[in-house]
């Protein structure tokens, strides 16, 4: 037993699980140590992952279906998971300080980390299924930590994720029936038969629910808004994306061989996810909820890349997954810093944070430009590979134009929604709430992870051919694959940097060297002193653009308006639609349960007859 637990491949799972128990058992008096223990455990996990990452392809058959495997893909996802686990644990120490239920929090976080690492290494569908289910439970518990407010969000997440686990189970059973094995390193299954399609779609559904693609996305915004920020950054923004997309790639590349029909379906889901989620993000008033919709929208790009079936597309999808985890956790952690300092993430009650929290602001700007795909940041590099994948994969067909336009328009709309956040939270004048609180920058355990992540956005974009591609992405999809359509980040970066440098020189040579500060000019209107300081009460006379009415003109457009109306009625939320449908049948069934013994006996007899008939048909 012990040598199994200490097996180098099992160690990344053992360490966080045991440390989780330790965090749970530490007495309350040692609350200060708890965070430290968690950080050390997460760091040790990363140390344990490193040799596995470097170790190349290996399989460890431990007992029965407990079989682990490392190949390029899982090694890459394994490392990414461990790194994000560590960063978010560090951040948690600052954010969760003084909050209730710390012992459970750290235990669940560490268990999530352990189970995720295990799921990535699983070489048997049964093992994968068990760990997948376990992750659903820890997700439920982690969201619930935020208190009674989050109970609904936790339940919704649990039902969607749990439901998709059941579907995954169906897929596993079908694969077992069809091939007689649940091992994942067997030959890929050909699509074509009905059973194979159902099995394929079951796996895809599980991957989509985890990653948050439409139509199984609706738990992500609720979770992002209600759960504690590090949880939102840890799960929907990074770990669950890594796992969901990992499973999708495994399914599309290793377990099945994709055919044209399924490819088209996946592309369609990807394109719809990109556009719909970003349209929803545009009109959100809450920073965390807005970010969560982007967490959904970005999955669309990954799906588009992976479903293209081309090497550059799959590489782009994986790279985008990694980049998304980087900038999305940076954005969530910035939102957390804002919440910590101001007490709210409501865009209408924020403002003026650009000066009050310069480091958080700078990190947010970089991450926001990155997610919007502005060259030369990392988001552009991976989106560009996805575009290449769409074009190459669509050769000969015609639908690629739709996918490409959806992806590129999605990019512009992403930029638009982040412009709104930048304006409403950071750049417009301080709201009364913010001005009264005299907001300052957060402590270093909170700004350090965000700035590291933002710096990584720049590094992965500028040095795309030197850092992420050769060391992470190429090994992940097999070193033999060569893809041509990779954007030459070097020359363009040099150009942009040279341009900005020249501009700075120009500033230095001219009067911009010493600037004079003056009051804003509002077309002759006079700003009252309290207005300038941002403490004016009541309606002001000015034409302030707030987070609410920023895209009102867009919202009021004829067809768009209808879509938002439907969305407000939750027509696109599978949870509410499913609940409505279920209630309809429950009502019908309820009528059958009249509480009369003769009625029940009749039902029992009828059931017996049906079973008898079935058995006779089977034997006859």
């Amino acid at each position, binding site marked *: 037993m012990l040598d199994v637990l200490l097996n180098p491949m099992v160690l990344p799972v053992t360490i966080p699980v045991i440390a989780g128990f330790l965090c749970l058992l530490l007495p309350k008096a040692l609350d200060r140590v708890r965070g430290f223990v968690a950080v050390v455990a997460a760091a040790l996990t990363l140390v344990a992952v490193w040799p596995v990452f470097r170790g190349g392809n290996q399989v460890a058959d431990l007992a029965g279906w407990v079989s682990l495997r490392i190949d390029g893909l899982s090694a890459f996802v394994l490392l990414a998971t461990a790194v994000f686990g560590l960063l978010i644990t560090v951040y948690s120490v600052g954010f969760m300080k003084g909050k209730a239920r710390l012992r459970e929090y750290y235990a669940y976080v560490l268990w999530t980390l352990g189970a995720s690492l295990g799921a990535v290494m699983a070489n048997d569908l049964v093992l994968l299924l068990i760990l997948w289910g376990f992750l659903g439970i820890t997700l439920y518990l982690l969201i619930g930590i935020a208190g009674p407010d989050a109970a609904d969000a936790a339940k919704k997440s649990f039902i969607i994720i749990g439901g998709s686990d059941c579907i995954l189970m169906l897929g596993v059973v079908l694969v077992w029936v069809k091939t007689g094995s649940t091992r994942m390193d067997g030959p890929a299954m050909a699509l074509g038969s009905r059973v194979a399609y159902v099995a394929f779609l079951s796996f895809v559904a599980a991957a989509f629910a985890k990653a948050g693609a439409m139509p199984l996305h609706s738990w992500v915004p609720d979770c992002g808004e209600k759960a504690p920020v590090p949880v939102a950054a840890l799960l929907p923004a990074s770990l669950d994306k890594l796992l969901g997309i990992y499973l999708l790639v495994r399914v599309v590349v290793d377990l099945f061989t994709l055919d044209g029909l399924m490819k088209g379906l996946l592309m369609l889901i990807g394109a719809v996810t990109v556009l719909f989620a970003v349209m929803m993000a545009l009109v959100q008033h809450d920073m965390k909820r807005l970010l969560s919709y982007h967490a959904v929208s970005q999955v669309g790009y990954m799906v588009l890349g992976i479903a293209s079936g081309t090497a550059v597309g799959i590489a782009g999808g994986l790279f985008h997954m990694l980049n998304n985890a980087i900038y999305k956790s940076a954005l969530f952690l910035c939102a957390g810093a804002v919440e910590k300092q101001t007490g709210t993430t409501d865009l209408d009650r924020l403002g003026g944070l650009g000066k009050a929290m310069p480091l958080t602001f700078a990190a947010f700007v970089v991450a926001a430009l990155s997610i919007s795909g502005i060259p030369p940041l990392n988001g552009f590099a991976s989106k560009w590979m996805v575009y290449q994948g769409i074009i190459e994969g669509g050769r000969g067909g015609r639908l690629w134009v739709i996918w490409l*336009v959806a992806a590129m328009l999605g990019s512009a709309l992403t930029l638009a929604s982040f412009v709104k956040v930048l*304006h409403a939270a950071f750049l417009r004048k301080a709201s009364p709430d913010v001005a009264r609180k005299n907001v300052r920058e957060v402590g270093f355990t909170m700004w350090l992870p965000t700035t590291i992540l933002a710096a990584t956005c720049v590094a992965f974009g500028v040095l795309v051919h030197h850092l992420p591609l050769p060391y992470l992405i190429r090994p992940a999809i097999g070193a033999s694959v060569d893809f041509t359509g990779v954007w030459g980040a070097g020359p363009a970066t040099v150009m942009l940097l040279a341009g900005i440098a020249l501009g700075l020189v120009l500033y230095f040579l001219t009067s911009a060297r010493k600037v004079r500060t003056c009051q804003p000019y509002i077309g002759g209107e006079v700003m009252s002193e309290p207005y300038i300081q941002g403490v004016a009460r009541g309606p002001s006379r000015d034409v302030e*653009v707030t987070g609410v009415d920023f895209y009102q003109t*867009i919202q009021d457009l004829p067809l768009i308006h209808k879509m938002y109306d439907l969305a407000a009625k939750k027509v696109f939320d599978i949870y509410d639609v499913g609940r409505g449908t279920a209630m309809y049948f429950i009502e019908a069934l309820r009528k059958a349960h009249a509480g009369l013994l003769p009625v029940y006996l009749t039902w029992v007899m009828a059931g017996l007859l049906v079973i008898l008939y079935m058995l006779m048909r089977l034997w006859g």
Partner: protein
Amino acid sequence: MYYGDIIVQYLVFPGMLFTAVVGLVTSWIDRKVTARVQMRVGPPFLQPFYDIVKYMIKETTVPAGAPAWLFLSAPLIGLAAVSAASTILWRALMVPSETFAGDLIVLIYLLTMPALAVILGSFASCNPLASVGGSREMKLVMGYELPFVLAALVPVIHAQSIRMGDILSASPAVAAPSGVLALLVAMLCMQAKLTLVPFDAPEAETELTGGAYIEYSGPPLGLFKLTRAMMLFTMPMFLVALYCGGIRFGTGWLDIVLGILKYVGLVVVIVLIRNTAPRMRIDQAVKFFWGPVTVVALAAVVLAFMGW
């Protein structure tokens, strides 16, 4: 050596300096024609150059309460991006065989960045009028980006390649009906990208007193104006390259003159539209781009697939 070459090309020819000079000359044409339309004499040839120099010696002010670093660096982003776009475009025009795959997408992205620079700058101005201007600019970008991308894909479908070099070597898209439609769509989008009348709601002098630029003065404002002049050169040139076969070098002076004529033709259309149309409200503009313009762009794409 490799990067040294790139920097020289970027800063001098065909990048920043060249684009700035031609852009300022084009802005002189714009001002002169506008003046003639309005029965005025118009500025002397060197006036745009005098203006830029004068901006450089004026005082720089920063509005109170704004993050100065973002306020001052916003103009640099736009300038750097338009110069990079021009460099990539002209390298493709001069040596079509040496372009890289997918440079068209890079160009579309780079040509959006000047708008982003204006938006960031206006939001960093801490001024409600600038905020209105910036938000309008963003909505305008959302509006024209959809038809613009669709229209830009028409030559891609014709040439069956997303490489600028292949598009330039193939027969011009405008020879086919789909290419004509796409060019019309792209010209409307170009007008909006340049925020010229009827799509000048973000600046709207009579209403927002300059909107996005209201707080800018001195060198930063000069750089914004320079960026606009450079866009006035790069955007029509991009359309000439995409739809009209570009400028062919090395096949005699007649082809070069022909290329310049195509460019001047587009500029004249821009100037005429801007002098004869009234300003659209921002919601009208977005509705216009997402409605009729997108329908026409879609029609062009369908026609292109049918081989027309």
